[in-house]
């Protein structure tokens, strides 16, 4: 099985649920468990929220999600053209937040890593950030 999709939307917080639900719908053809869908929805929510708050600093620009299914592997790329990240290992540390003023918990990447099999961040200051997440969807009896 092979399938791809591209989803582009404005970086406003109302689109966080839109992005989660759309990615969840895309992955249904993999016949995932409810737990696997919930895992992916949480990870997507974290990546999109990061793009809105940190990448674009709450300004309205575009966020793109590329989805790819290859057999039992789901790959998602969440892309913004925002401020980018200077020190990637630092922002991925649990409890670290660049915006304590916004009461961010610093757990976004922790949740992405807990619920996906692989999380990779590519970023360049002034150019933007891409978060690549992979998850193997297990075989479930129908």
């Amino acid at each position, binding site marked *: 099985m092979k399938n791809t999709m591209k989803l582009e939307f404005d970086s406003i917080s*109302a689109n966080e649920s839109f992005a*989660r639900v759309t990615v969840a719908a895309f992955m249904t053809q993999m016949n995932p468990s409810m737990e696997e869908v919930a895992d992916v929805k949480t990870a997507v929510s974290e990546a999109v929220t990061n793009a809105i708050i940190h990448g674009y600093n709450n300004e309205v620009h575009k966020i793109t999600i590329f989805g790819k299914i290859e057999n039992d592997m789901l790959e998602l790329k969440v892309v913004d053209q925002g401020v980018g990240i200077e020190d990637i290992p630092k922002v991925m540390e649990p409890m670290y937040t660049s915006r304590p003023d916004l009461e961010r918990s610093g757990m976004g990447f922790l*949740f992405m890593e*807990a619920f996906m099999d692989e999380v990779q961040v590519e970023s360049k200051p002034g150019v933007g950030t891409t978060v690549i997440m992979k998850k193997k969807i297990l075989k479930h009896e129908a």
Partner: protein
Amino acid sequence: MEIEGKITDKSLIIQLPQELDHHSADQICRETDKLATTEDIREIIFDFSRTTFCDSSGIGMLMGRYKMMNALGGTVRAVQVKGRVAKILMLSGITKIIPLES
């Protein structure tokens, strides 16, 4: 979506929405902080009975309200937390300061 708080005996009860994310957490912060600073409130009770989704923004919202109430000498409670949401709250470690109640 409208978040509305209800005050009974110095307890502010917030009925949380189905999905607690950055979008809804911001509205909850505004409503709780407005009431907690204008009314005499000893505790905030977050009712999770309808909530089926929560991400790190929900955790940040709870942490922020905990700090605020702690500074005011009050408490924060989380009631009716179920399934997936309970798992997220436990994973975050916030249950060490806000225990889950049925």
